[in-house]
């Protein structure tokens, strides 16, 4: 419950441009120079900051540069401080998936071998859609589109596309095949979230792929007190991200939700 409150509070705090939702416009203040840590579309009418993945593609696909030191530096600072705690506590699309997963229906776990293989998809998406395509698939002027945002990102559809279309008739009229594709993807991710815990975070999200690298080195970490651990495996059974908590408490897939800590009867996880 504490995590849910922080997730909602952070979402509201970074999307405070409420009038944007009614006017069908987005915020244009200077705070959009800075990236927020989570996957929060800058075309969300409420957004006060910029999406790091969108920003990364914007600079890589710009006329002047092919590398974004600014965005990579910010991502490294966020990662160093929090790692994938950002996914678990600060990401708005993670929050939506969490809320949907709370609906009481039968839950499923993807078989281990399939799950293990599918986890690599997000790294491929990061390299291909976020870095290589904006770097090399440019137009005659040397500029590229934000391919991940355009063809995959469900957060942009949910927080940007849908609110803007509701309040802006001109945008509604312009929606076509691409919007239908993205709305379909959004439906798939949200629908799957009912049965599987955070499918987008586990398999698709390029931001999670970046923060995964920092989990081992971030300032916020988990440690197992081996003198207290009774090897009951309750922590691993409680983990919805299927992390081998006992052997790797700082595994790259751990989003620091804290379910393992709550499940541990010996209070061995700190």
């Amino acid at each position, binding site marked *: 419950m504490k995590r849910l409150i922080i997730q909602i509070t952070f979402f509201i705090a970074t999307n405070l441009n409420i009038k944007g939702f009614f006017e069908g*416009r*987005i*915020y*244009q*203040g*200077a705070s*959009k*120079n*800075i*990236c927020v840590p989570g996957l929060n*579309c*800058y*075309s969300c009418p409420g*957004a006060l*900051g*910029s*999406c790091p993945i*969108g*920003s990364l593609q*914007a*600079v890589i696909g*710009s006329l*002047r*540069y092919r590398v*974004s*030191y*600014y*965005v*990579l*530096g*910010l991502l*490294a*600072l966020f*990662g*160093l401080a929090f790692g994938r705690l950002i996914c678990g506590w600060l990401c708005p699309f993670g929050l939506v998936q969490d809320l949907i997963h709370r609906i009481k229906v039968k839950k499923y776990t993807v078989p281990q071998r399939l799950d293990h293989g599918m986890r690599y998809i997000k790294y491929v998406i990061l390299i291909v859609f976020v870095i290589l395509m904006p770097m090399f698939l440019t137009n005659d002027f040397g500029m590229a*589109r*934000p391919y991940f*945002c*355009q063809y995959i*990102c469900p957060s*942009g*559809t949910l927080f*940007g*596309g849908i609110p*803007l*279309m509701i309040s802006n008739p001109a*945008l509604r009229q*312009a*929606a*076509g095949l*691409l*919007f239908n*594709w*993205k*709305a379909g993807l959004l439906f798939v991710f949200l629908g799957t979230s009912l049965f599987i815990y955070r499918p987008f975070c586990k398999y698709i999200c390029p931001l999670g792929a970046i923060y995964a690298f*920092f989990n*081992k*080195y971030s*300032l916020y970490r988990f440690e197992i007190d081996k003198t207290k651990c009774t090897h009951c495996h309750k922590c691993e059974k409680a983990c919805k991200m299927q992390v081998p908590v006992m052997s790797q408490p700082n595994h790259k897939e751990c989003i620091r939700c804290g379910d393992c800590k709550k499940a541990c009867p010996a209070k061995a996880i700190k």
Partner: protein
Amino acid sequence: MEKRINIIRIGIFITSICFVAFGLYREEHAIVLKKAINICLECIGIG
């Protein structure tokens, strides 16, 4: 082990500060701002 992690942390911290500073020097934040203050048609599924 902990010492090694601390060294890597310091390395990441210094590198990321240098990256941000160099990015600001190159005015990358202006590209970010320009993209973020205009409705991104690709992001919302129109462009």
